[in-house]
């Protein structure tokens, strides 16, 4: 219980504050403040390296996508296209693609036919202008192709690093996983700013200009479907796909989350997504769930279809099926 009087704030010390400020104390205070400010400036020096236009007043004042007027959105799109031209050297065909009426997208994957060639994962990188260090860097691809032993469904035993000379390997099967555009999506539920939401055609989209980068959605996703831009995306100029849309494959800023959008810049214009276009075995079936004559409806009505992690309760729009 001893205390050291030499190190306390004694009443005599305290009395100093009652006295009016004299020149000496003022100068002392001023000197101390200047040292403090100098220290602060030195600490914040890296901010000088920020690119001009990295944070503009327009960026900060931009409203949420769903509250933007058409004129606002057009203006923003033009400024984004100009920014991409400045930073990456390509002026994109950037537009906002609205959903079609009477459409709910569904996707099915035939596990009997997938051979694990990874063409879908590579096509995704190219179509969606994702950051990659070299042509073989699959980290940011929205599609993860897993190799599982026949007889096992437990994903804990999966291997995404498989690299045999030929696929498919004996005794293995291959399961690509991407965003399932869940009907009860946990990611949209947990986003604190509603930067990600479900559109009328079922797609879960992200407004990259609204996302604050907290990564709660990444923690919530049961399918590991989301990717984060830990740095400004590196995309080589000759690798850029110029057909871009605001909500899907425009080149993202750093610090935001991105995910598969079923290539909405293609699918909302009636085309197939890039992963389906390149699959050599035709394992992927995409279409409109609301159309009873579509291929996806045929699969759901005629094939042995199941859902990954059904017990979590996400009710996804991505189905897996077997032919035999």
């Amino acid at each position: 219980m001893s205390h050291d009087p030499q190190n306390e704030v004694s009443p005599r010390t305290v009395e100093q504050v009652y006295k009016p400020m004299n020149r000496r104390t003022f100068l002392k205070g001023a000197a101390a403040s200047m040292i403090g400010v100098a220290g602060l400036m030195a600490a914040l020096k890296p901010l000088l390296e920020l690119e001009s236009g990295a944070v503009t007043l327009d960026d900060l004042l931009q409203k949420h996508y769903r509250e933007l007027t058409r004129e606002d959105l057009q203006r923003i799109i033009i400024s984004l296209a100009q920014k991409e031209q400045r930073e990456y050297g390509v002026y994109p065909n950037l537009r906002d693609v609205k959903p079609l009426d009477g459409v709910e997208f569904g996707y099915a994957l035939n596990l009997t036919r997938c051979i694990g060639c990874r063409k879908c994962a590579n096509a995704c990188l190219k179509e969606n202008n994702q950051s990659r260090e070299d042509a073989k860097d699959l980290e940011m691809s929205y599609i993860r192709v897993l190799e599982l032993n026949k007889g096992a469904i437990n994903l804990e035993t999966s291997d995404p690093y498989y690299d045999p000379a030929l696929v498919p390997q004996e005794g293995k099967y291959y399961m690509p996983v991407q965003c399932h555009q869940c009907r009860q999506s946990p990611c949209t539920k947990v986003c604190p700013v509603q930067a990600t939401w479900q559109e009328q055609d079922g797609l879960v989209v992200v407004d990259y200009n609204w996302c604050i980068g907290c990564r709660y959605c990444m923690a919530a996703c049961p399918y590991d479907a989301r990717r984060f831009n830990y740095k400004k995306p590196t995309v080589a100029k000759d690798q850029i796909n110029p057909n871009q849309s605001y909500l899907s494959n425009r080149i993202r800023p750093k610090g935001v989350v991105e995910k598969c959008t079923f290539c909405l810049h293609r699918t909302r214009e009636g085309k197939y997504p890039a992963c389906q276009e390149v699959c050599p075995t035709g394992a992927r079936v995409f279409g409109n769930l609301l159309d009873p004559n579509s291929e996806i409806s045929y699969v759901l009505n005629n094939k042995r279809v199941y859902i990954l992690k059904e017990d979590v309760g996400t009710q996804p729009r991505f189905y897996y099926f077997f032919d035999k």
Partner: protein
Amino acid sequence: MIAIERWIQRGNLRTLMKLGIGVVVSASIMNGAGEAPSAGTDSPPTAAATAFVTTSPLPSIARPQANQPLAGLPSDTHLDKTPPRRTKGLDLVKAGWTYNCMECHKLFPARWHYDDRPFNEHKDVKLEHGNNRFCLNCHHPTNRNAFVDYDGAEIAQADVVKLCAKCHGTIYRDWEAGVHGRQNGFWKAELGDKTKLRCIQCHDPHSPKFKPMQPLAPLRYPPRGANPLPATSPQTSAAH
């Protein structure tokens, strides 16, 4: 014998030599022409031909590249939509090749069995189509430009899909519905066309099992992840 000597002496030896050369030349032409439509590799002449051929074989004809029909949109230059198999025959037809199998096959009788006689042509064909042992299960016996149906009727070359449907009805049904094999282009018919691939663009009809292919480069351990395992050890261990 004396008559022959006297015929020869009468100066017909030159005629005989011209005749002999003519036979040799036409035999070698036939040999060389017979070689051209095959795989293009120089196979050694058979015993029957070597008796006549003494000169070098005729030069082989350069064959046009097989054109792959367009799959999907031309604007997708960054997407690799090549079908797994380069088809030969029907694309040559589209390129203008007059693919008339009967030009040879009108000379030679129909043979059923695949495996018990030496081939002059089609040496590259190895029949590994399930339980099929006979070429004529699929090829029409009298019109080799067509395929054969169960009742002996012809299936035209352009309708080759119907041939596959003969036995693979469920797969054909799925293909018609768009669920077997890949479709490219537009899923929404009002906005554009979709294209399907034909059976033979993925499956070699003589050896249709889908060929394993080399996968693209694997996922790498993320650059900022700690403690990566050495590249040789697989992620899954025997314990799990």
